[in-house]
């Protein structure tokens, strides 16, 4: 593209104005990146059809515990391949603010339920053998500088011990990580057997069950079959996907998808006004220059193309910077959001959509000034120069 140098120079004709315009484009696309990642993360759980794992919780409230006796009944439900359980421990490490999640679980069953969790054979064996053993996510190990062999005290906020104590001490037997880009391992797992024995109340219950659906079985039917068994019992159940489960906290915020769309609509409308104004000004103040280009033999459509390219270039510079910054920020916050909002990452389709929007917005902002430049009469423009 021979005109690129000329286009580039034109874009930077007024450095401050262009910088401010690019900054507003940047902010708009940064918002786009963040909001679309959040919106996707919320939507991810809505599709039950291809779920491999389902979560069984109390129908009334997530807080209510389920009897441990349900495990065998769930396991024998047609379409269920395997089942295990977990419970919300809700403690903290050293300081109230260090609130990564802890779950008492059944080591071998849990790790075979979650193959994406990486742990070495030896560490898993050591964990299973040690009644007060625990494993922690790599994120936590790095954050608090913890390693295998350390003893980690966790202050309980819910689960007092039988002796009335609130401090649960665990030996770190392994460090885990997740090889699912959307997943997280920012939590601590410890032995349910120890938990069962040492806790003061609610013995014989677990927080929720996780089941694996048999290959070929319909997840929606399996979910129904599980819930049906416990109808009219003291603890009715609700079986749904993992993502839906994780988001049951976050869903309280309302219709996220709609909110995102409204915000983005407002942002892009403003963006078009800002960028459109910049382009209109830029053309207005160089009418005679455009006339000179035409005099030299630049054709009308070349002049149109030059002005449009300037507009698109401004959108691309600001937009790509904004998306890049957004990706960076999401990458930083996603691990700490893992338990709350899994699947928080910038999808390639969002990036493609953003680039599409950059072109469309660039054309929309530049089209009228570009047409003005194209239609410009050389004779009139030079006469009034």
């Amino acid at each position, binding site marked *: 593209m021979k005109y690129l140098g000329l286009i580039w120079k034109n874009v930077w004709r007024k450095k401050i104005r262009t910088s401010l315009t690019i900054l507003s484009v940047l902010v708009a696309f940064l918002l786009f990146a963040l909001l679309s990642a959040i919106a996707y993360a919320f939507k991810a759980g809505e599709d039950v059809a291809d779920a491999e794992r389902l979560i069984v919780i109390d129908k009334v409230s997530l807080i209510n515990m389920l009897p441990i006796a349900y495990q065998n009944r769930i396991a024998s439900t047609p379409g269920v391949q395997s089942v295990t359980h977990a419970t919300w421990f809700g403690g903290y490490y050293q300081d109230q603010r260090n609130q990564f999640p802890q779950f008492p679980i059944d080591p071998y069953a849990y790790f075979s339920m979650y193959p994406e969790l990486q742990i070495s054979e030896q560490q898993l064996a050591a964990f299973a053998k040690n009644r007060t053993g625990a494993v922690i996510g790599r994120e936590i190990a790095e954050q608090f500088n913890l390693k295998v062999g350390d003893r980690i005290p966790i202050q309980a906020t819910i689960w007092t011990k039988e002796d009335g104590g609130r401090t649960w001490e665990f030996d770190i037997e392994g460090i885990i990580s997740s090889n699912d880009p959307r997943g997280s391992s920012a939590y601590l797992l410890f032995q349910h057997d120890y938990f069962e024995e040492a806790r003061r109340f609610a013995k014989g219950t677990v927080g929720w069950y996780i089941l694996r659906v048999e290959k070929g079985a319909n997840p929606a039917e399996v979910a129904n079959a599980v819930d049906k068994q416990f109808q009219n019992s003291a603890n009715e159940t609700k079986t749904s996907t993992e993502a839906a489960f994780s988001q049951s906290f976050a869903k309280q915020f309302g219709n996220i998808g709609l909110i995102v769309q409204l915000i983005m609509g407002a942002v892009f409308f403003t963006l078009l006004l800002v960028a459109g104004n910049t382009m209109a000004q830029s053309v207005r103040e160089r009418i005679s*220059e455009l006339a000179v280009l*035409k*005099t*030299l033999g630049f054709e009308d459509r070349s002049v149109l193309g030059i002005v449009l390219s300037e507009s698109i270039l401004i959108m691309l510079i600001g937009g790509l910077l904004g998306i890049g910054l957004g990706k960076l920020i999401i990458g930083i916050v996603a691990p700490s959001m893992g338990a709350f909002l899994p699947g928080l990452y910038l999808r390639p389709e969002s990036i493609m959509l953003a680039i599409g929007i950059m072109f469309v917005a660039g054309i929309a902002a530049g089209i009228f000034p570009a047409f003005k430049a194209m239609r410009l009469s*050389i004779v009139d423009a030079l006469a009034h*120069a």
Partner: protein
Amino acid sequence: MNDTLAELTSVSRSYQKGKERVEVLHELDLGIPAGDFLAIMGPSGSGKTTLLNLLGGLDKPSAGTVRVGDAVLSDMSNSQLSRWRATHVGFIFQFYNLLPILNAQKNVELPLLLTSFNRAERAKRAAIALDIVGLKERAKHYPRELSGGQEQRVAIARAIVSDPTLLLCDEPTGDLDRSTADEILRLLQILNSEHGKTIVMVTHDAQAADYAKRTLHCDKGKLERREQA
């Protein structure tokens, strides 16, 4: 006389001003031989710029034909005229009309963007053109860093860089002091005598017109010849 390079045959140009029709040029005939250096003088509003615009394919006559070389400009479409201008004619204006965002070299290269020359060839040709106008060492200067006379030299380099046969100048010295104006006019003379450019120059300045081979006076849409003394 040599072959005629440009020829206007009963050319009229009128503008609609509200309900009135103003005829700026009326059935004008003019032949410009190749190698001519023609000065056109006349009062303001007499149609001098209009005449240049017709010769340069920037404007089309209301009636009559305009021919330059083999091209009948009055029959050509706007985009045909654009392509023709790029290689056949160079324009020099009173206010230089350089692009402030480009340095001298890049301003001179502008018309070459419309050719198939690559980057290196464009730079080489621009350097030659700047050398001809005596501004080789100012290639990297921006217009705001140049004097009026230097700006006009850059504009002249831009006008000749694609090697057109015809140069059209609209009051090229109108904004310059006497001695700078004389330098520019001598440069035009050299382009005419040594580089074979045919030049048509509109001017208000009789001293400037003395540099031309002949002068025509334009008044009320008619051209009148007064031979050089």
